[in-house]
């Protein structure tokens, strides 16, 4: 679809906005509707739009599959370790009060960290799912090309 000028230019205009909106939802999650899950999906949607226009190969140059996989696990670990910090510092699991001196600052820090973990995992997992499905097509084509021989 790279040849289509309208699509290319609109995408080039939209992708940064989508990413920005994703980050807004991510970091405003503790005040307004939103949070890591929604933000992750929005960011992944921006990447998928890029992949649709410029092709999967180009999109995988931005973020290779292995990196997605590692980031997906990293997000889970970030969540789990932030929760664990609460226990280590003398509270309960996912207890944010012991993390920082100020009550509000502690809650905010905890929520943002945990939600960031969620966001990273959701974004990369959605990208991975898309990658697996998108790759199916080229695998199929490779198969059907071999068959006539």
């Amino acid at each position: 679809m790279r040849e289509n000028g309208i699509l290319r230019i609109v995408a080039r205009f939209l992708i940064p906005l989508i990413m920005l909106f994703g980050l807004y939802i991510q970091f405003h999650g503790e005040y307004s509707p939103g949070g890591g899950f929604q933000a992750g999906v929005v960011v992944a949607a921006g990447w998928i739009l890029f992949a649709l226009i410029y092709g999967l190969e180009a999109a995988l140059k931005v973020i290779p599959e292995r990196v997605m996989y590692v980031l997906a696990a990293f997000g889970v670990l970030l969540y789990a370790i932030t929760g664990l910090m609460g226990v280590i510092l003398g509270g309960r699991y996912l207890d944010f009060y012991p993390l920082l001196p100020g009550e509000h600052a502690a809650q905010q820090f905890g929520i943002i960290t945990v939600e960031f973990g969620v966001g990273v995992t959701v974004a990369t997992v959605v990208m991975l799912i898309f990658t697996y499905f998108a790759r199916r097509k080229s695998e199929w084509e490779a198969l059907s090309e071999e068959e006539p021989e």
Partner: protein
Amino acid sequence: MAIVDLMPFSVLAPLIASGVVALLPGRFWPWAITLLAAIVATVIAALTLPAALESTLSYPFGNWPPPIGIEYRVDAANAFVALLVAGMAALSLPWAKVSIDREVPERQGAFYALFLLALAGLLGITLTGDAFNVFVFLEISSLATYALIAHGRDRRALLASFRYLIMGTIGATFLLIGIALLYMMTGTLNMADLAVRLPEVQHTRTVDAALAFIVVGMGLKLAMLPLHLWLPNAYAYAPNFVTIFLAGTATKVALYVMVRFIFTVFGGEYSFTVLPLAIVLMALGVAGMFAGSWVAMFQDHLKRMLAYSSVAQVGYMVLGVSLFSAAGLTAAFLHMFNHALIKVALFMAVGTIMYRIGSIKLQDIRGLGRQMPWTLTAFALAGLSIIGVPTTAGFISKWYLILAAAEAGHWWLVGLIVITSMMAVYYIWRVIEAAWMQERPAGSPAVREAPLALLAPTWLMVALNFYFGIDTRLTVGASTAAAEALLGVGGLMP
């Protein structure tokens, strides 16, 4: 550190480990860390059980007091099930190493991470005291389970997994609808809080519908008779280790959720008057016992045979619940535990056969008894347990079920239980007859005995079957306490 603070880590250990294991390369470390996490979960669950027998433990997550925050609430009933789930994981993992190296040669990190997620999900369902949290963990464990089943080498595993996905999603959706209806009526999701608030709004159509949705939804996950269609193929084509783990845990946890909602959240008295649960569960339980055993008698695929036998065994547990008495629930919990021991042992033996000869069709195992005596002896001994021969675990749970049926005055049930046990004799005997009494087919390659890495865990499970058939202090004691804990809140306690 008090035991209450330690308790949630039986869920958190596998959950955190799954993130680590997903990143580990190779074949040794993913398995080793998984085993470590399962052992940690088991030890914590084992420490929790005695404490939970004395008093109910409550752990507020993030220090938000319940009912606002999510609470883990552990009494005898869920401590017992949690020990069962974690224990089965820890006991089946040593068996897994050799088998999984063959069946899932690549990307074992991802495989074991999925397994840990399934384990954490099942434990989470068990320990949590929050109705919505039950749904979340149910989805975690179910999604991981679908992916695990799809790892089977047989291509039909994909179809089996997809079918389970459809049926399981319907079940989970029903549960969610039920929970949403409850939330609509009471404004709370905490189970203990629900139990307090529900009597005010009882006998409204909404609450009745919620109960019906939850019972049917969990009936699906539990493979109660007319809703069992996903189970045989899912068990038959999954990797052997996955079958072993699922047979020991998944349906049991679903049964636990069902009784938890029926007895603790809604209150047994209410549940059994609004819905004709006593009749429906009894009819479905008995039908499951017969249909499952009947179909199992004609299966040539051993894993399918054992899967249908599982449908029958679920029938016994449902029958115990339907009696609505302390004795009946005790029998249900006992059979939950003992059936896990039996089925894990049987599936391990069958998986070991599959490891050696690559097939588990009845005609392919002819004459195998002389070539793999240890494996098939283990199968035969575990078979005695599923039949319910005295000194085995299977006898204990059937005995208590018969006592409960007699106490309720249903003497005819005793006859039915004996008849279905006879049917079990037949399907176990077919295997033994083929393996020991028939000649090896001409031209089949010589088979050696299975490696010790597979035999040792199998024999450990067989030994446990006999141990818990003789020393019943743990199982009967914990089951009785579990039944009392469930009936104590709002039920009619004798």
